[in-house]
């Protein structure tokens, strides 16, 4: 027995997904490290709301666990830990960009258009809800990648990575839900990844006196 969502449930799900995407854009717009982390926390909270709403709409209680994981791990623990790191390393000032704020926003919109163009032909038979949330989730993923490409600093690259992962979760809850085991293992691997990143931050800074990854490129011989 499948449950058919009502029209307004469509709309609310759609709205929350769009909010996640908006916070993705806010990540690109921010110029200060701590604002970036705050936007990231808000994105995770919006993601938790999206998962909880999908749990309600699809009558799938295990998605509430997904929502709780997103809220606690990505909405609280990861941003607080990164914030602590940023303050500890004394890099809470400006975000250094490889591409300016304006151009990266424009590229972001182009990526959203691209993901819509990609998703529409592939999902011809799916319901409008699935298709739209898939398009939105794909945009969030691409924005995360864009964030990783256009920011020099290691911390912002990690935030981009986590935002990308938010997009994956968003895609997963929009489709008929993925098993909870997968969910939990992803959440923990993200947490472990964050700890590893933290260690790497200290290592990188010890070696190069900076978290700017351009120095790594010089070191590898990528740049002269």
């Amino acid at each position, binding site marked *: 027995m499948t449950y058919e969502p009502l*029209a*307004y449930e469509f*709309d*609310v799900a*759609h*709205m929350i*997904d*769009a909010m996640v995407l*908006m916070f993705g*854009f806010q990540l690109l*717009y921010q110029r200060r490290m701590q604002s970036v982390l705050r936007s990231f926390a808000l994105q995770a909270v919006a993601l938790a709301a999206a998962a909880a709403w999908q749990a309600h709409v699809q009558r799938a209680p295990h998605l509430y666990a997904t929502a709780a994981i997103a809220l606690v791990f990505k909405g609280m623990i990861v941003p607080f830990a990164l914030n602590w790191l940023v303050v500890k390393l004394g890099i809470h000032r400006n975000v250094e960009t490889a591409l300016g*704020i*304006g151009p990266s*926003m*424009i590229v*972001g*919109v182009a990526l*959203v*258009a691209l993901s*819509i163009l990609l998703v*529409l032909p592939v999902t011809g038979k799916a319901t*409008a809800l699935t*298709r*739209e949330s898939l*398009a939105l989730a794909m945009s969030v993923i691409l924005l995360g990648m864009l964030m990783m490409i256009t920011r020099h600093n290691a911390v912002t690259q990690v935030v981009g990575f986590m935002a990308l992962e938010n997009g994956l979760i968003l895609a997963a809850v929009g489709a008929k839900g993925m098993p909870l085991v997968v969910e939990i293992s992803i959440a923990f691997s993200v947490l472990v990844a964050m700890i590893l990143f933290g260690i790497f931050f200290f290592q990188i800074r010890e070696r190069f006196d900076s978290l700017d990854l351009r120095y790594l490129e010089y070191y590898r011989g990528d740049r002269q």
Partner: protein
Amino acid sequence: MSAIVWQLLHALLMVGLAPLVTGIVRLAKSRLQGRRGPSPLQPYRDLYRLLQKEAIVADSASWLFRVAPYLIFTATWTGAAIVPAFTSDMTLVPAADLIALVAMLGVARFFTALAGMDVGTAFGGIGSSREMMIASLAEPAMLMMTFSLSLLAGTTAPAGIGAFVLKGGIHLDVSAGLALLSLLMVAIAENGRIPVDNPSTHLELTMVHEAMVLEYSGRHLALIEAAGMVRLLLYMTLIASIFAPWGIAQPDEPAVFAVTGLLLFLVKVVLMAVALAVFETSIAKMRVFRVADFLGGALLLALLATIFIYVSEAV
């Protein structure tokens, strides 16, 4: 026949109410900042005082300088007259759409900028150049928002879009939400509110609108100030008529509905005035060169709104 009466009443209401709305915003801001603040009727007294005073015009000013205040006020007032506030049964409503509204406001801005440069002082020039920079980004955003709404509703007239929303045409929709966000950002920029411009500053480095009208005095200044107040109310009415049109009497409804519509309109405007004050108090003014990012964001949001229409339409 009744359409003409409503039209006249609406036009008078727009001018009569505008200073009160500005007064409410100022009072709410003062209270939020821990000051007692002036009475909400203070803008009326200010305008009256300015009207009593002699208008002083610089020696180097041309005829344009004298004509500009009247043109600015008339263009803004005409713009305000075509946006339905409490009834859409008005003479000008079928003739007017959002594009015409943008043009009216564009005319007003054009003459403000010309008048700013006319006397030849440095401040007027800097104000005009900044105003044009803001306008060159705000107008495309506003037009883009208009296009996405008209794709949804099938019309560019605010009354038509409002009627479409009332009929349940637009429910909670991502495109409409993005368009609203974009319109709010444009409204903040166009009215020179924080974080784009500070309406109560006379600090040289930051002022935009105040710099252009620095040379004006007396009745000219009163007209320009009044035009600014009408513009604020115009944007509030526009937002209410498109995104919260509940209570606006439609042409086929009895005239009593216009009275309840008027009461609801007053409630909506007061709510928006308080919301504006809260927003302005909770945010810091940004540097002039960040305004480009802010309005670029508004433009991109409007663009996204248009893109998302195609996702939901292409079933």
